[in-house]
C-alpha cells in the first residue's frame, strides 16, 4: 500500500482470517487480508469466483453466513474496532454507517412491501424523522437515483420496476442514512450491459455527493476501470496486488494479475490473437452451409399460479421471442449472435439445434431443412450444441465415459464396446483431458473441465456444425480464454462451422467472422465483424459497443 494519508481511513482491515468449519475439516476462506479505504475513496476489489472478495465484504458488515466466522484479525471503522461488537451494536452500525448493495436487484427487495415503505422504515430506523419527513427524504433519494416521477413511483411494489430501476432503489436504500462506507457486492453483474454503466454512474454520483467511500466488489475489470481509484486483486483468499487502478492495469507486477488482465478479451483485435479463418472469396448465399430464413417464434404466456388458475388456464397472451430473423453461415466459419438477455438469441439457437420448432420460417443445414422429416436425421448427426452452464449440461448421475459416448450410442454409429471406448478416449484427448476421466463423475471436475467434456460430447458424432450458446459466460475469465482457444483450434483442425451466441462483444470480436445483433427478437443488423464493430449502423449496436469498458482508456 502506497498511501500514507494523514487522515484516519474510513475502513481499516488487518490480518482478517475467516474460517468455515466444514465436514471435511476447516475451510479457510480468507488468509489474513489487510487493506485500508480512505474517506471518499472508491476501492475496487477484483478476483475470480471463490477468491474471497464477497466474503471480505460480508465479514466487514458482520453478515457472514454461518458456519463462517472471523477467526482472527481486526476491522476498524473510523478507528473504532467493530469486528468484536455485540450483535445489538452491530445492528446500529449497519445501514447507518455502512451501507450495502447486493448483487441481484430482483431478490434484494421484499416483494410484499412498496418501495416507499422499505425506504421509510430504513430512514426512520436511523434518523429521527417523522413519517412525512422520511417520505420527503425518500422521494428526493429516489429522484437522485434517477427514478423518473419519484413522487408517484414511491408507492409501487418492487415487481413494478425493471431490473436496473430496482438496483437504483437498492442503492437509494443503501445510502438512505448517509453512511460513511458503502459495500457494493457485484452491483451490476445481474444487469444487462446497457444499464450497467448507468447504474454504476448513479452509485458513484450518490456516494460522491455524500462523501461516502465505496468498496466495490466485482469480477469485472471493466467496471473497476470505470470508477475505482484504487484496486485490490484477490485470489484464493489472499490479496495478490493493490495500487492505483491505472498503474495496476497498465503495469501489473504479479503473475496472477498479469494473467487476469491478459485473459480479458478486448474489442480491439490484438495481433497475436488467432484470426478467424477468412473465407477466400465472398460466396453467394447458395453456398452457405447454414441458412436461416425468416425465422419466427411465438410463446404463449400461461394463466395464473393458483390451483384453479392451473386447472383451467387464463387467457393466452402471445409473446414474440424471435421475429423474422434471417442470416447465413459459410462452411468453416463462425457467425456470432449478440444481444442482451431476452433478445431471443438463445431461442434462435434452440430452433436451429432442433430443440424447439419455429412458429414460421425455415432453417437449412447443408441444404436440408432441419425441421423436415429427412432433414432431422441428418441434423442429429451434423448439428451439435454446447451449452452455457457446464454444471447443468452433464447428467450428474452418469460417468463421463457414458456422457461422451451417448451420441455415438443414440445414433447407433457403432455398438462395439471397445470401439466406443477408444473413440471416447480419443475425444477426451482432443479436448486435452486424461482418458482416465471417463470413469469419473462430472462433479469431480471444475467448470472449465466440464465445458471441455461437453465439447468432447458434441464432437463425438463428428458434426460439421456446432451451436455454442454462451459457452464461456459461466466460466472465470482465465478459463474462458482456454476454452475459446480450444474451440478455435478444433475449428481449424476439423473445419467446423460455429454459431456462437454471446452477450460478450469481446468474445464475438475475437471468434467470429460475421456477426448479427439482436434486440427484442429482431435482427438489428448483420454483417462482417470488423465492419459492424468499427462502423455500426444501428443505434442499438453503437450503444452496446459504448457500454463495453475499455481498459486502454484508463487514466
Amino acid at each position: 500500500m502506497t498511501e500514507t494519508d494523514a487522515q484516519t481511513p474510513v475502513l481499516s482491515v488487518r490480518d482478517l482470517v475467516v474460517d468455515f468449519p466444514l465436514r471435511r475439516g476447516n475451510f479457510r476462506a480468507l488468509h489474513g487480508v489487510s487493506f485500508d479505504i480512505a474517506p471518499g475513496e472508491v476501492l475496487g476489489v477484483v478476483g475470480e469466483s471463490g477468491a474471497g472478495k464477497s466474503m471480505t465484504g460480508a465479514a466487514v458488515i458482520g453478515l457472514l453466513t454461518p458456519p463462517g466466522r472471523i477467526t482472527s484479525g481486526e476491522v476498524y471503522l473510523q478507528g473504532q474496532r467493530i469486528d468484536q461488537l455485540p450483535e445489538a451494536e452491530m445492528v446500529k452500525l449497519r445501514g447507518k454507517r455502512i451501507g450495502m448493495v447486493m448483487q441481484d436487484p430482483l431478490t434484494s427487495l421484499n416483494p410484499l412491501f412498496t418501495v416507499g415503505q422499505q425506504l421509510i422504515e430504513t430512514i426512520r430506523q436511523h434518523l429521527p424523522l417523522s413519517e412525512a419527513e422520511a417520505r420527503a427524504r425518500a422521494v428526493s433519494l429516489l429522484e437522485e437515483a434517477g427514478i423518473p416521477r419519484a413522487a408517484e413511483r414511491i408507492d409501487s411494489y418492487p415487481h413494478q420496476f425493471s431490473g436496473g430501476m430496482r438496483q437504483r432503489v437498492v442503492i437509494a436504500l443503501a445510502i438512505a442514512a448517509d453512511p460513511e462506507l458503502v459495500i457494493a457486492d457485484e452491483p451490476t453483474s445481474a444487469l444487462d450491459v446497457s444499464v450497467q454503466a448507468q447504474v454504476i454512474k448513479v452509485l458513484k454520483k450518490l456516494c460522491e455527493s455524500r462523501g461516502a467511500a465505496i468498496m466495490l466488489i466485482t469480477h469485472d475489470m471493466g467496471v473497476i476501470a470505470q470508477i475505482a481509484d484504487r484496486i485490490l486483486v484477490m485470489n484464493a483468499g489472499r490479496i495478490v496486488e493493490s495500487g492505483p487502478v491505472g498503474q495496476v492495469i497498465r503495469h501489473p507486477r504479479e503473475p496472477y494479475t498479469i494473467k487476469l488482465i491478459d485473459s480479458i478479451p478486448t474489442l480491439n483485435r490484438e495481433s497475436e490473437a488467432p484470426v478467424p479463418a477468412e473465407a477466400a472469396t465472398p460466396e453467394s448465399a447458395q453456398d452457405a452451409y447454414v441458412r436461416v430464413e425468416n425465422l419466427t417464434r411465438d410463446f404463449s404466456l400461461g394463466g395464473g399460479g393458483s390451483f384453479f388458475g392451473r386447472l383451467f388456464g387464463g387467457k393466452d397472451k402471445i409473446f414474440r421471442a424471435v421475429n423474422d430473423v434471417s442470416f447465413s453461415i459459410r462452411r468453416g466459419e463462425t457467425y456470432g449472435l449478440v444481444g442482451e438477455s431476452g433478445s431471443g438469441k438463445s431461442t434462435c439457437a434452440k430452433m436451429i439445434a432442433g430443440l424447439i420448432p419455429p412458429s414460421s420460417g425455415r432453417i437449412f443445414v447443408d441444404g436440408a431443412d432441419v425441421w423436415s422429416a429427412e432433414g432431422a436425421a441428418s441434423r442429429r448427426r451434423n448439428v451439435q450444441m454446447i451449452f452455457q452452464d457446464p454444471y447443468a449440461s452433464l447428467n450428474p448421475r452418469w460417468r463421463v465415459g457414458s456422457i461422451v459416448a451417448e451420441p455415438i450410442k443414440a445414433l447407433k454409429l457403432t455398438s462395439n464396446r471397445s470401439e466406443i471406448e477408444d473413440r471416447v478416449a480419443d475425444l477426451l484427448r482432443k479436448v486435452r483431458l486424461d482418458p482416465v476421466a471417463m470413469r469419473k463423475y462430472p462433479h469431480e471436475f471444475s467448470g472449465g473441465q466440464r465445458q471441455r467434456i461437453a465439447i468432447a460430447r458434441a464432437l463425438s458424432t463428428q458434426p460439421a456444425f456446432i451451436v455454442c450458446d454462451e459457452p464461456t459466460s459461466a466460466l472465470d475469465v482465465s478459463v474462458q480464454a482456454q476454452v475459446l482457444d480450444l474451440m478455435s483450434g478444433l475449428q481449424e483442425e476439423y473445419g467446423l462451422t460455429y454459431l456462437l451466441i454471446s452477450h460478450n462483444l469481446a468474445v464475438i470480436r475475437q471468434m467470429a467472422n460475421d456477426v448479427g445483433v439482436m434486440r427484442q427478437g429482431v435482427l438489428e443488423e448483420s454483417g462482417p465483424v470488423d465492419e459492424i464493430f468499427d462502423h455500426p449502423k444501428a443505434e442499438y449496436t453503437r450503444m452496446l459497443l459504448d457500454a463495453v469498458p475499455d481498459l486502454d482508456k484508463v487514466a
Partner: protein
Amino acid sequence: MLAFILRRLLQSLIVMLAVAFIAFLMFRFVGDPVEGMMGVDARLADREALRDRLGLNDPFYMQFWTFVKNAARGEFGISYRLQQPVTQLILSRLPATIELAVVSASLALIVGVTLGVFTAIHGRLPPSSRETLTALAAIILPALALWFLGRGLLWSFGAAALIFVSTAFWAKSFFSQAVMAVSLVGVSLPTFLIGIGLIFVFAVELKLLPSFGRGQTVELWKGWSTGFLTKSGLLSLILPAVTLSLFQMTLIMRLVRAEMQEVLRSDYIRFARARGLPESTINFRHALKNTMVPVITITGLQLGSIIAFAIITETVFNWPGVGSLFVNSVQAVDVPVMAAYLLFVALVFVVINLIVDLLYYLVDPRLRVDGRSGRA
C-alpha cells in the same frame, strides 16, 4: 376483481360436477339401488315401479342430470341401512361435526402458527449442551421430587409440563428443538391412538373428563343442537377437539417453520439486515408476511380436511357427527350416504379453496394486475 371471482366460481362448479359424476357412478353401479331401498323380498311390480320412479330406466346422461338436479336440491335418496332420507340424516348430525371442527381448527391454527414462528426464529442454532442440561434438570427434578413426595403422577406430569412451557422464555432454542422433536413423534402417532391415550389418562385414570358422546345439548334454531351452552357439553368437547387438532397443529407448525426458515434465508432478508433493521422488524414485519403467502394456501386446505379427518376422532369418542355416520355407512356399503358425504366434503373443499384464492389475492401485490401500466 369481479371477473376474477366469477371465473373462480365457474371453475368451482366444474370441480363439483366432476365429483358429482364420481358420486353418481358409485350410486348407480355399486350394489343395486332398488334392492338397497326395498330389501330382497319386495314384489317384482313394486321394484319396477321404483326403478321407474328413480329413473333407472332412463338413458345414462339423463340419469346423471337427474342426480345433479336432486343433489342441488339436497336430495340424495334414502339410506339403505337406516331407511331414512340421507339429507335428514346428515343434517341432524352436522352440528356436532361442525362444532368439533371449528374448535379444533382454531386451536390448530393459533397454536400451530405461534409455535411455527417461534421455532423458526429460535431454532436456527442448536441449543448448547449446557442449556439443554439445565432445562432438562429443571423439568425432571421437580417432577421426580413431587413423585417421591407421593403427590402422584398427575402432579409430576403437570409440573413437568408447566416448566417445559416456561422454557420458551428462558431456554428458547432448547424449547424450539424440543417442540420439533415432540412434533415428529406427533406425526408418527395415529390419531386414534392419541384419542385412546387421552381417554386413558383423563377419563380412566383421572376421571376428569367424559370419554364419549357430546354431553347435554340445547336446541338453538331449526334443529341445530349445540353443546356450547352446557357444562357437560363443553367438557365433552375438550378431548375430541384436542385429539382432532393435534395432527393438524403439528402439520401447520412444521409448515410455517419450514416456510419461514426459507424466507429468512432469502436475499431480501439479508438486505434488510444490511439496512440495519432490528431483528424484531425483520422477523415480524418482513419475514412473517412473506411466510404467510404460501402458508395460507396449504393451511386453508389442511383446515378444510379437518372435517374429513373427524371420521377417526368421532369414532374413537362416539361423537354423533357426520364422520361416524360415514364409517358406519362404509361398513354397511350404504352407498347413498357415502355419495352424499363425498359431495359434502367436496363442497367444503371448494368453498375453502375459493376463500384461500381471495386471501392470496389480497396478500400478494404481485397477483394484482392494476400496477402493470406503471412499469418503468
